[in-house]
Structure formats: C-alpha cells, structure tokens
C-alpha cells in the first residue's frame, strides 16, 4: 500500500529519519486509534521487563571476583538483608551488616575500589571489572587496596568500608537505577577522606557508564583524572568539579544532577 514502511523508496523519504538519529526517545511510534500499535506496545514491555530484571536479579559475586583476578577481593553485605528491605530502607543499605567490619583489616591505601550492586546487577556484572582493571592500569604507582564487593549496598556504604580499611580516597562503583533504554548503566562516586556522615556534595560522580553511554576507557580517564586531582587538592565534591570544565562535556551529562527534579537517594 502507498506509504508503507516496507517500501524502501518511502523509507528514503521518512520525514522522521534525521530526528530518529538525534534521539533515543520513542518518537513517531504511530497510532492504533489513539493507542500504541502492538509492536511499540510489546517493545516497551520488553524494555520494562529488562529494567525490572536488572533491579531484582543478584550479582554473581563469584564470577565478578574471578573477573577481577588477580586483584584481591573482600566480600561484605549491607545491613539490608534482602532486596525488598533494600528498596524500602535506604538507611540500611548505607551501613555494613553487624559482623562485617571484622572482614576489613586496617591498612594504608591511596585508593580503594568498592563495587556495590545498587539498583542494577547487570550494570555491575558487565561493566565493573573492566572499569576497575582500566583504572588500575592507569594508577599503577599508587597503593591500591583490595577490591571490596558489597551486596545490597548504596553509595554511602563506601565511606564506612574505606574508613575501616584506611583509604585516603574511595571510588564506589554502583549499578544505577535502570531506565528503559539503559539497564546496564554504572555510576562512579569518588570521596576524599571517606568516613560515615559524608554528604553527597562532598563527592564527585561520573554517571552513565555503559556500552551506549560513556565508554570504559573514557570513564577510566575521567575517573583517574579526578582521583589524581582529589589527591593533589585533598578534596572531592563541588569545589573539585568547578575546576574541571573538561568534565562538563555532553557525554557526562549526569555529572551535574540538578535537572529540576526532586532527587533520588542513590
């Protein structure tokens, strides 16, 4: 029929073509009456199903530890015993479970990596080990602590872990709340002189690390630049960000999280 999308000639004339390449937004879906066409409806449901699976599935910690070898790893658990509790009680996800501090021997480290499952097991499984390896390769001159793998954990858990291990700087990698178009997005939070009670304004964040977002190599470059500057200036947070205009590029959009929306607790 005329105007059918199956006709290659008409595809050439698709008035939406140049717009589709500029956004992942679900534009020009077509209509069945006033409703979504079946194809678009099912594509949406698939994306939502994947996002929910990312939230509710668990990280395979053994595999993650194997992916991180030969780096030494230590496993800890937050005070949130399971996923339903984790979702309802962000305060518990920010503290270690009662007996876990004993697993963290005090030392002296320049930098410590903590991998937290956060809200996307898939993000952690796919992206955490490659990012840690890429950073370690760039920071070989520093004293790097054992990699801590934390389950049911939120960002602030890194403060308690790093304080116990004796680290000057903690880099916490966390699975970000999945959207429909990015279920495997990893975030990285850097905190200088970590200790319980640090405010979010005292951290730097690199967001949107995944295959269609910030690449592992670019993320590692940014992260190591921030880590080096943090050590030089002995701080992280708002004050460090202001001196880093190169970090405000378009592929790092979530570095500034003031987008007019009342925020989430990470």
């Amino acid at each position, binding site marked *: 029929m005329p105007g059918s999308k199956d006709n290659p000639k008409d595809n050439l004339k698709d008035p939406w073509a140049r*717009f589709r390449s500029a956004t992942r937004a679900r*534009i020009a879906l077509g209509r069945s009456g006033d409703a979504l066409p079946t194809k678009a409806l099912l594509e949406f449901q698939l994306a*939502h199903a994947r996002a929910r699976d*990312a939230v509710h599935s668990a990280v395979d910690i053994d595999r993650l530890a194997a992916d991180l070898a030969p780096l030494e790893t230590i496993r800890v658990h937050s005070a949130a015993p399971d996923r339903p509790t984790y979702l309802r009680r962000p305060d518990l996800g920010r503290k270690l479970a009662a007996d876990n501090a004993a697993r963290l021997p005090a030392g002296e480290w320049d930098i410590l990596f903590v991998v937290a499952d956060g809200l996307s097991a898939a993000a952690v499984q796919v992206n955490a080990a490659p990012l840690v390896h890429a950073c370690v390769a760039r920071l070989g001159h520093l004293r790097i602590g054992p990699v801590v793998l934390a389950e049911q954990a939120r960002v602030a858990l890194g403060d308690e872990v790093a304080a116990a291990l004796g680290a000057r700087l903690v880099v916490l990698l966390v699975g970000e709340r999945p959207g429909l178009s*990015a279920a495997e997005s990893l975030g990285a939070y850097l905190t200088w002189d970590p200790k319980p009670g640090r405010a979010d304004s005292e951290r730097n964040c690199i967001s949107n690390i995944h295959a269609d977002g910030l690449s592992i190599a670019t993320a590692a470059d940014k992260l190591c630049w921030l880590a080096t500057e943090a050590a030089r200036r002995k701080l992280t947070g708002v004050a460090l960000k202001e001196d880093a205009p190169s970090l405000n590029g378009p592929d790092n*959009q979530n570095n500034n999280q003031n987008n007019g929306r009342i925020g989430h607790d990470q």
Partner: protein
Amino acid sequence: MANYHCDLGRQRHRFDDLKAVMACASPRRSGDELAGIAADSDERRVAARMVLADLPLKSFLNEALVAYETDEVTRLIIDSHDAAAFRPVAHMTVGQFRDWLLSYEADTATLAALAPGLTPEMVAAVSKLMRNHDLVCVAAKCSVVTRFRTTVGLPGRLSSRLQPNHPTDDPTGIAASTLDGLLYGIGDAVIGINPATDNVPACIALLEMLDAVRTRFDIPVQSCVLAHVTTTIQAIERGAPVDLVFQSIAGTEKANRGFGVTLSLLAEAQEAARALKRGTIGDNVMYFETGQGSALSADAHFGVDQQTVETRAYAVARAFDPLLVNTVVGFIGPEYLFDAKQITRAGLEDHMCAKLLGVPMGCDVCYTNHAEADQDDMDVLMTMLATAGVNFLIAVPGADDVMLNYQSLSYHDVLGLRHLLKRPPAPEFEAWLDKAGWLDEQRRLPPWPDRSLVVSALLGSAA
C-alpha cells in the same frame, strides 16, 4: 502532653501529639515507615482516624505541626490565613468537614470562596478520612483557572505538558520530541524541558530554541526550561525569552533550603518574570513541582507525615499565583511510595488537597523501575485524575523519559483520555489546532500519515 486517644474494646490507643495522630491516620506508606512514624497496626490506623474525625478543624490554627518561630512556611500559612473565608466551616470537626465537602452544598463557587480560609494541615487531615473516590469527587468540584498564553484549568478541559527531554540537551533531539508531541495536541499547559546541564548559557540556548518553534508556527503555548530558579533569574537578566520560572518546592523552610530557595527568592523570581510581560492573556508566571518524600529525603520533615508536609508545599505555591503546579508522584522512589497502590492514592490526595487550597494542580503520572508499578497502574491513575478534573498531565514520547530514566504517560495516553472523556485542550490551543486544519469533523485529532500535508508542513519547516 495532649490527650489524644481512642478506646477500641479493651485497647486504648494513645497519641502523643497532633503530629502523631496525623501520621498514624495516614494510609500505609513506605516513607512514613522509613521515618518511623507510621501506625504499627491497621487497628491503630483506624483509631487515629477516629480521633481525627472528632477534632475541631480550628485545632490546626492553635497547634502548629512545624514550629512557627523557626519555619517561614508555617509563618506564611498562619499569617495569610483568611479568618472570614474560614467562618462557614469554623465550627466543624474534621469528620463533619468531610461530610460537608461531599454534600451538594459544597459547590464550585462555595469551595473557591473557602480556599483562602483553609490551611494545608486542615486539608491533609480531611483527606486522610477520604476514600480514593471521595478524593476524585471533591476535587472534581474545584476549579482553579490560570492564564499566560493559554487558559489552563477550565471545567471540561484537559491540558498537558509536553516534556521533550534529551540526555545531552541535543537541539535536534529535543525538536524531534516536541514536534512529535504537537502532532498529538500535547503542550497546551507548557512545553517544558528538564535540562541535562543546569547552567545559564545552556538554559538560554534551550529557551531560544523553544521560543523559535513557538513563533515559527504561531502556537499559543508557553515554554519553560526547568533549571534552578537562580539560573532562570540570571537568564532573565541576560535578556532570554523566559515565559515561566520553574522551581521544585517543599513544605518546610529547611527542605526548601535544601533546594536552594527561600520565599523571598521565589518572590524575586516572580517579579522578574512578570516584568517581562510576555503573557498575552494573564500573568501567572510560576511553575512549581512537588512530591511526597522530598522533605524526609532532605531530613527536614520534623516528624510530620509525608502527605501533610507535601500539602504544606501547596501553601508555598499559592503565595506566588502559579500557572502550573504538579506533583511528581511516582518519581521519588519506592522508599516513599512503594507500589502502585501507594502511588495511586498519593496522586489523588495531592491533587485534591492542592485544589481545595486553590492551587492549579497537575500531575506527572509516573513510576520508576524499582517501584512495584507498571503502565497498567498509570492507566488507572490517569483516568481517575482526568475524571477528577486535573489541570494538566505530563506526557513524553512513548511514556519513556530517556533523560530522567523513568516512565511517565505517553502522548497517546493524553490524547486518548481527551477523546474518551470529551475533554479538549485549552481553548486557545484548540483554536490553533482547528485553524491549522488538524481536527476531524468530530473535533478529534486523528493520526496524520507521515506524508500528509500536516506532517510535512510541521517537519519540513523545522530545520
């Protein structure tokens, strides 16, 4: 210690203060449980409601839930209370007030006259005694009409915010979502972008782009870039085409400080935007967003339940004659509203409470991927809100916000509601659709094929 108590059989339920009565009377809600103030049994919840039902409405004028001396929102509420407007209901208990609100006597004009006499705490209290359907029916009797280039909130109409967000603020990407939305008749409340980057030059670039689209097609709409209020004030100083000033607000002074705002800063912004005189039929220049949980998230709730604190934010809003206010109800996360049942209830509460206070309430019917909710649940809430006469609903392409990573309504949803419930958009915008030849003989907005004149005129000239 005040003696709030209720005897149920052999059990005496005691409540330490009015805050505790309010918190325990609230429907079960993860945010109140997180705060440690929720009722610990279903019986206690009903006991608190029974206490509340017998309380005189004027109790809330005598016992502040957040201290007057240390909170400017409480001072605003108490100092601006209109005792004359309150008089018709001044003798009632909260329970009697519910019965009266549902009565035929409480009609649209009566409720409009009453609004300045009500405080957020009174309204929150009565909402705790209402079922969802009560919330719909009372809200449907309220009418709050505001104007800038369109008239929003007229009875029998349903407006919408077009939200064309893009993860990197790409102009072509934003234009794509905007033009797509216009083809569904979306945007008569506002075309409003959440910027990925909150700085003055980026904000000005987006404002100029939206203004160019508006003037090119001569569309009667207003635009907004939802940057921080201080960013928008600077954009105004640099001559940017600012229609509306946006800000997230909350129900206590401390929570507002967490957002970086005070009442005086909001007043300054309102004055700056009004001075531009860009509205053609009205000067409602403010746009606010709110949401249950924001005060607790900022550790600024002072032991008050999240729904009551939320309602206090509407007192902040109404002091600045906003064009638009919306709750972002399912956005803030399951630690505050756990599932669809809680989100649905909160959306209906927020809408009715705002309307009773005279606030032009809309809603972002939405959820995040870690909440127990899906699009079926949004169908229920959007239909109930539209029936309740919500001023506007937010819509994004295919219900998927690719920048904020959550699900709202789709353009399809709002258009479908308009046709189903016979609620056209704002009259100025509807006239524009009509003049452009986009409506069919039944005044519906049909699907226009990609190769139709309607689509090619819109897309072809938007280089």
